């Protein structure tokens, strides 16, 4: 028997996922405009790989294919991986990365329960497996501002991200905390750079890169593997920002974001547990405050 409520707001998981994909389109357009249509091929390759991998794993796990294939989550993972590699990346890098991401998602608990951001698992694996292919002059997630025109990618990702905010698919907490922490740590290193560590890049160099913006609005904000309480979101995203800045600068390692996200993914449940907002009727200070104001009326 069906119990109350009998009414439902007409929103579905696919529609949330589809809107995230739509929000990525401006960034993709800017990418194509600046570096040619190669990225489209990468996206298509990643998408097909993701769908096939997802279908195979679903079939092996005897799960309904249509329901889970059409939810759009595999496509988001695929697109994020394709956008994170530099455009001259070989096709097998994208395919393997996507494959790893999808399999990892299922290994770590399936949609809704996976602990690690699937796209970042795929990226991290590729970074470790093929360090030479992934690290040179990459303009996207691993990279820095690679020549003229790249601010346009940043702006395009920003536009998509702001639209997600307006659609209430994400909240302001994570992008704000991520950018804030990244700027802070980069600023600290920038100050140090002016004295002795001359090899460090300046703060705005990495804060405003296309990769950072993509991460701030589309990667860090993955609801499944991140935190959900308002305070928890701030801590989680700030942690990723700090770690990314440190890894980029001190380690001079390009995949900082992937490892930072994975590290903070582990901490997410604990952060959520300790940042629960007070429950109705249990905000003692608040309650007594009201009784006090009442008596003075």
């Amino acid at each position, binding site marked *: *028997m*069906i*119990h*109350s*409520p*009998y*009414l*439902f*707001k007409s*929103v*579905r*998981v696919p*529609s*949330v996922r589809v809107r995230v994909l739509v929000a990525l389109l401006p960034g993709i357009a800017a990418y194509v405009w600046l570096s040619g249509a190669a990225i489209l091929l990468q996206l298509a390759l990643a998408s097909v790989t993701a769908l096939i991998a997802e279908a195979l794993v679903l079939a092996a796990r005897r799960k*309904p294919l249509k*329901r889970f294939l059409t*939810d759009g*989550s595999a496509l988001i993972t695929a697109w994020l991986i394709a956008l994170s590699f530099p455009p001259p990346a070989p096709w097998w890098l994208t395919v393997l990365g996507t494959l790893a991401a999808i399999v990892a998602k299922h290994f770590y608990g*399936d*949609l*809704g*329960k996976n602990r690690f951001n699937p796209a970042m698992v795929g990226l991290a694996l590729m970074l470790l497996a093929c360090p030479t292919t992934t690290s040179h002059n990459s303009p996207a997630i691993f990279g820095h501002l690679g020549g003229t025109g790249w601010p346009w990618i940043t702006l395009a990702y920003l536009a998509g991200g702001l639209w997600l905010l307006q659609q209430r*698919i994400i*909240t302001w907490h994570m992008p704000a905390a991520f950018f804030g922490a990244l700027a802070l740590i980069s600023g600290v290193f920038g100050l140090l750079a002016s004295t002795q560590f001359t090899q460090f890049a300046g703060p705005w160099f990495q804060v405003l890169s296309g990769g950072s913006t993509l991460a701030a609005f589309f990667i860090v904000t993955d*609801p*499944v593997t*991140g935190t*959900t*309480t308002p305070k928890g979101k701030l801590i989680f995203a700030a942690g990723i920002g700090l770690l990314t800045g440190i890894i980029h600068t001190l380690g001079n390692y390009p995949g900082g974001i992937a490892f930072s996200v994975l590290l903070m993914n582990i901490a997410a449940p604990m952060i*959520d547990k300790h940042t*629960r*907002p*007070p*429950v*109705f*009727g*249990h*905000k003692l200070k*608040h*309650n007594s405050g*009201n*009784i006090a*104001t*009442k008596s003075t009326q």
Partner: protein
Amino acid sequence: MKGLFRFNGGVKPASNKDVSTQQPIASLPLPEVLVIPLHQNVGGTPRPLVAPGDHVLKGQRIGTADGNPSTAVHASTSGTVLAVAMRCMPHPSGLDALCIVLEPDGRDEWIEHHPFDYRTATLAQTRNYLRDAGIVGIGGESFPSHLDTLVINGAESEPFITCDDMLMRERAAQILRGTTIMRDVLAARRVLIGIEDNKPEAIAAMTDAANRLGDPAVTVVVIPTIYPSGSAELLIRVLTGIEVPHGKCQTDYGVLCFGVSTAYAIHEAIDLGQPLISRIVTVTGNVETARNIDVRIGTSMNHLVAQARPRPDSDRLIMGGPMTGLQMPNRDVPVVKATTAVLVGSPTLFPPPPPEMPCIRCGDCVTACPADLQPFELYRFAQAKLFAEAKDYHLFDCIECGGCAYVCPSHIPLVDYYRFAKSEIRTREHDKKCADEARERFEFRQFREEREKLERAAKLAARSAVGRDAATATGMPEPVLAQLDDAKRALITAALNRVASPRQAVVPDNTEGLTTAPRADG
């Protein structure tokens, strides 16, 4: 908005109220039979006062309250008691409960009744009078002698339901009268009547009635329409800023909230001497003529719904609204005092939810929750049967408003998971309580048996002491007597020690004290 407080969360489903407010409150022809459940309020089940074959008058008490906070039950019309028997209750479980089955005689003849002079009565007398008049929904076991704010709930935020709306439109003066009575009885400093801003006619009628009352302490407050602001806790929050935790006594926080229909029933009981035998019920949903009907308690829902002409594709009856309503096990269950609406459902009106998808922790449920809970975490705990964690995450502060399930993009029946977890926790706590009680009973029995054994021994010793007295008379030497005295004292001390520590008494070496007596004797 000014001076109001807000609560987090809430949802705004389509209200669907207009369909049932187009026509005035109608009355219903007498049904062929009335099935009046005895248990219609929290607390014990009222005891039946009538037997099959008895003739009763309208308003005659047929079930007497079984202590506080149980309430009495009355005949909704005059007629003959056909049976005092188990009948199906208006609850999804479909369980039976004791009912008075009444066949109306068509005369609808009132029992002699008189107004109640609450001004000369004590608080307890008024409370008992209202209890015996069958008034439900006035909260706790006793009335506080002093109250800061009396909140009258006219918010009616649940979609489809308009019974309070129509009652306020048509009988505002009577509601205000009932409100004034309660204000006097409870010595409330102020009365706030909260009505959602989607009921302009009701607001106008109530404001007008309040103005005519001329009491500055009584205010009609228009509040924004956000489901579930009609829940007592949230309405109190919106009007006064006070947060009464779910399940806590409102009067401990200086407030008391009850509905406009209760205020109306209080007016009828006090001013007219009429007990609660009917109520306004909204019949709506998949029907041709949705409207509000004044229905006698015990009328079958089938009889009621027939007046609104349900469409042929109707597939179920829901008691209450679409957010919190209960699906009825069949169409013949009776209207009870808690029936606000009978919602006729159909597959097109309430299509089955799309297949459940995994939770993606999107947080929409958190945004919707008016109790500031983390619904998706509660869902996970319930799913994993981690009940201790669920309790720690304040599962029992959930008011089951359905907001989370309403917004869930994965269409997870979240409230069902909470209901499951709550009932599991209650069952386990009940089982644990039973086990604890059984253990205590067993331990007490052991203690009692031990004590009786000792008492028998003490008696035995006392008897031998009597023998000793006899011995003194016959010239027994003094030292022997002193020895006997010591033996008796030792015995009593040992017995007292054992009684003081029953657990130690179980240890078998407690015969120690007894051994001295025979030795002394010997």
